């Protein structure tokens, strides 16, 4: 049974490959090499890349193929090489490692293939990178927290994946800020792995030997939504919530809205509560922007080797609810979505880019550009 399934699967895909191959003859081959798709950020970023490829002005220019390498760097190396061999004009990459791909990227560049990395970096000089300034993210958010606390208090940190350059840069920059203020004390440091679920278990461990009252503020890479929910569960009122510098999840941003905001589809703790927050993010549109740059490069336009995205920072003063989530609306400055539209509070809300017209909520949710 299984071999038969395999055979028919292969036959089917061969047929598909042949038909698309014939049609795509005049289109440029562009590949997306993702590392790991087992988390929400990656899937959202991929959706936005697909939406751009399907949008007007791109659909007839390029033929985008999406492949996943998994968490293993050797396989991504192999994949990028296979893409070059298959005739790629440009490859958009979410690199597993900033250094491991250098050799294969160099070889690809030598064949005239454009390599554009998003979110994480490739250190090989011929690669193009689209990232935020991670150190700035760590510094700005830490400064906000110090400011909120009046330069004094006990801080809990929740970091990302140890051993990655993103985590190291953010955490080091934040610690540098805290070190300048002798009255700021880091009382706990949990490894959050950039996951709300892990942040929850790690914070539970931290708080099993501590009380919320012993903590004055929190600096997190991912986990403010969870931390606020935990405080509510522990019987705190929204007014007592601790200031939290952290991620740009939709749930966290809904909590930032004033408590009397009218919204659809909310249920506690995914509700407005006026939580004191600064929200930053590695925006999931970086992949789509990388694809745009790839097309620009193929068309011979000038593209800087490193594109630093503006850091999306949202505070209680700038938070604004979107009604439909179309790009036109996002342009006017709204930055959080109705729970009725985005039912998962962990979903990443920083999807707006002025460079990517037409890519709104539908792009991030299902990979479709606005009509």
């Amino acid at each position, binding site marked *: 049974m299984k071999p038969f399934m395999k055979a028919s699967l292969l036959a089917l895909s061969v047929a598909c490959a042949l038909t698309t191959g014939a049609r795509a003859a005049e289109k440029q081959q562009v590949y997306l090499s993702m590392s790991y798709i087992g988390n*929400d950020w990656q899937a959202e970023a991929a959706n936005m890349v697909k939406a751009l490829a399907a949008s007007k002005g791109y659909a007839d220019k390029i033929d985008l193929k999406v492949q996943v390498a998994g968490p293993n*760097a*050797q396989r991504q190396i192999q994949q990028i090489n296979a893409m070059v061999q298959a005739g790629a004009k440009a490859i958009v990459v979410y690199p597993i490692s900033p*250094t491991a791909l250098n050799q294969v990227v160099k070889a690809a560049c030598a064949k005239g293939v454009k390599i554009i990395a998003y979110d994480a970096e490739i250190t090989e000089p011929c690669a193009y990178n689209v990232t935020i300034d991670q150190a700035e993210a760590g510094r700005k958010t830490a400064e906000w927290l110090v400011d909120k606390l009046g330069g004094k208090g006990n801080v809990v940190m929740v970091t990302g994946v140890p051993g*990655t350059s993103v985590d190291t840069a953010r955490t080091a920059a934040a610690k540098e800020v805290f070190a300048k203020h002798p009255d700021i004390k880091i009382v706990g440091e949990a490894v959050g792995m950039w996951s709300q679920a892990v942040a929850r278990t790690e914070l539970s461990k931290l708080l099993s030997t501590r009380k919320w009252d012993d903590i004055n503020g929190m600096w997190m890479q991912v986990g403010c939504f969870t931390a606020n929910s935990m405080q509510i569960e522990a019987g705190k009122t929204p007014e007592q919530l601790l200031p939290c510098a952290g991620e740009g999840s939709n749930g966290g941003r809904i909590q930032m809205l004033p408590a009397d905001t009218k919204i659809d589809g909310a249920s506690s703790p995914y509700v407005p509560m006026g939580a004191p927050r600064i929200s930053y993010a590695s925006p999931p549109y970086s992949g789509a922007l990388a694809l745009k740059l790839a097309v620009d490069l193929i068309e011979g336009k000038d593209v800087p080797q490193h594109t630093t995205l503006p850091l999306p920072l949202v505070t209680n003063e700038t938070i604004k609810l979107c009604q439909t989530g179309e790009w036109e609306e996002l342009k006017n400055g709204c930055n959080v979505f109705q729970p009725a539209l985005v039912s998962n509070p962990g*979903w990443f809300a920083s999807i707006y880019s002025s460079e990517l017209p037409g890519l709104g909520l539908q792009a991030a949710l299902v990979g479709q550009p606005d009509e």
Partner: protein
Amino acid sequence: MNVSLSTDTVANGVNSRMPAVFGRSIRRARGMVVAIIVFFGLMLLQAFISPGPISYFDMSFLISGATPLALAAFGQTLVILSGGFDLSAGAVISLVNAVLAANMDPADMEASVLVWTLVGIATGMGVGAFNGLFIAIFRLQPIVVTLSTMFIIQGITLLVLNQPGGFVSPSLGTFYMGDAIPEFLPSALLLLAALALGWGWLKRTPYGVALYAVGSDRASAAAVGVRVPLVRFATYVLAGGFYGMAGVFVSAQTGSGDPTVGNPLLLSIFAAVVIGGTRLGGGKGGPVGTIFGALVLMIIVNILLALNVSAYFSTIAEGIVLICAVLLSSVSRHSVFTEQIKGAAATISAWRAGNLVSQREQTDRRLAFVTRSNPSVAEPAARPAFLKQHAETLRYAVPAYACLVLVLIATQLVLGSVFGNWNYWNSLLVLSTFLAILALGQGSVILTGGLDLSVPWMIGLSGVMLAGVVQGSDAALIYAVPMVLAMAALFGFLNGFGVVVLGLSPILVTLAMNGILQGIALLYSNGTPSGFASSGLRWFMTGHLLGVTPVIYALVLFVAGGVLLLGRTTFGRRVYALGNSVDAARLSGVRTGRVTILVYMLSAVCAGVVGILLTGFSGQASLGMGDDYLLPSIAVVVVGGALITGGRGHYLGMVGGALLLTALQTLLAGTSLPYAFRAIIFGCVVLAAVVALRERTN
């Protein structure tokens, strides 16, 4: 059976030049031959479907790309042949990469290839010696020793190099990634060929023969005078050297360092070994097949690309390819699969003829002189004292609790507020719930001698589905929970089906299943899980009932149920019977296949329950939320005193293991130690906890 295998191997070593033995060696090398055929088959397929011809460059790149995996899997094969298991392989690759990148002089473009290769190999061998010391000399279980080593090594790696960077001299890259003979022979291929030849020699040395003997039957090997500890120690050291070599190769390939580069290789390493035809448990197979297994895994990347398999389908396609590849190797007259088909055919014909046991009249056929009610034993012998009766169980279950007490005391000393702080106990119990539940499923599988690697995505898929179906509604839980658990049971059944009916290795089936489940979760959620936990489920995990989080009451019931299930039911007895000897169990009338399938279903349902509870705990489901539970689920079972090869262990011990690991993590999370030190301490404590579990001498 095992004994005869080892004597065969010995005979093979002696008589290998006799033609009569030739047929048998081919049969024995079937796994390797199939891996080679599968590889070339896939290559032909690629040549057929890709637009251009396969060039020398493509081949050379493919081989160099697969070499780190092949080298590491080569080492792992030796360990597995000896009947062991090594989880530290990936961590050693990262360590060697970090050591090289951090210590090479960036100004020296012509660093000596020989010196740095030796540094890498020596580093790996050092770790191997550490493993070997505890496994061979102190007789601890390989899986838990190497798991501890893995954590310790990951910590040390971060101390050596805390983020990607460093410098590896291009001379290494030129040497290893270049050509031995330009346009004809890549250096990597030469290296692999040399190793294959080296193995051909090593296999015939006294060490090689002893390796197979030890892996087939340790007791028999010792009885015929093999110095078992020495052979096992040497195997781990040798394997460490191979991981070190893989680390050197990765460094050459990438030109710099990344402290996490090797860790994800671990599961691929096992897949390569199994595809290469080596049997887990030892004594059968060889590393040449493994090299082709690694190549197969690498060429799948090209095939998926050439077929343009959509991203969400890629893990599913890969899982199916893996199963098919291994299934091919088992198609023969004597494979489990064909035996099963023959058995089924025989059953049907017997049923037709009316000869089936169940069709016979239900009359009592016992001989007349057997006393029916057996009144003579009405007076049972006095039961031995509790301690004496349960001495074996206690010996293996108590160390986890003893260590737990030590960790609690340490927590009191370091952080204060443990004893007399109910909040601490409440958190500890809630957090232990996940591992305690997983331990019942994973523990039962391990008790039968299997292993369930599909736990992470069984958790992820269950959570994502539950959140998607309930959409925050409590009423929906009534049908959503049974639905999710039924789905989990179905996938558990498929796992068991693969193991029992298709006769595949549990590691391979469950690994492939993990990939398939990941694909299903992605397809179901379209990459973005929707929905969130209902308020009732959240209250269950985070609220309070009489000052206690409700899930703790359920945990108590669950543990009681688990103890009864494994200790007091026929199912439980059969699980232990299977773990001690499948053959003996079958001859005693146990329907071994049925029990095995049930055990995998139990494990899947437990993972499903954890997925549901985690969703309630976090309030939402996320795709990768089960990723952190695979190795801990195995660790708690072993720390709790179970034997990884099956047949020994008590569920209460495993619960103790879950409490110990959670308490330890809580202690470490409360300190402000850097992550690197936390990992090292975690590994050391787990190692210390199992020192008391050392096996007795044979």
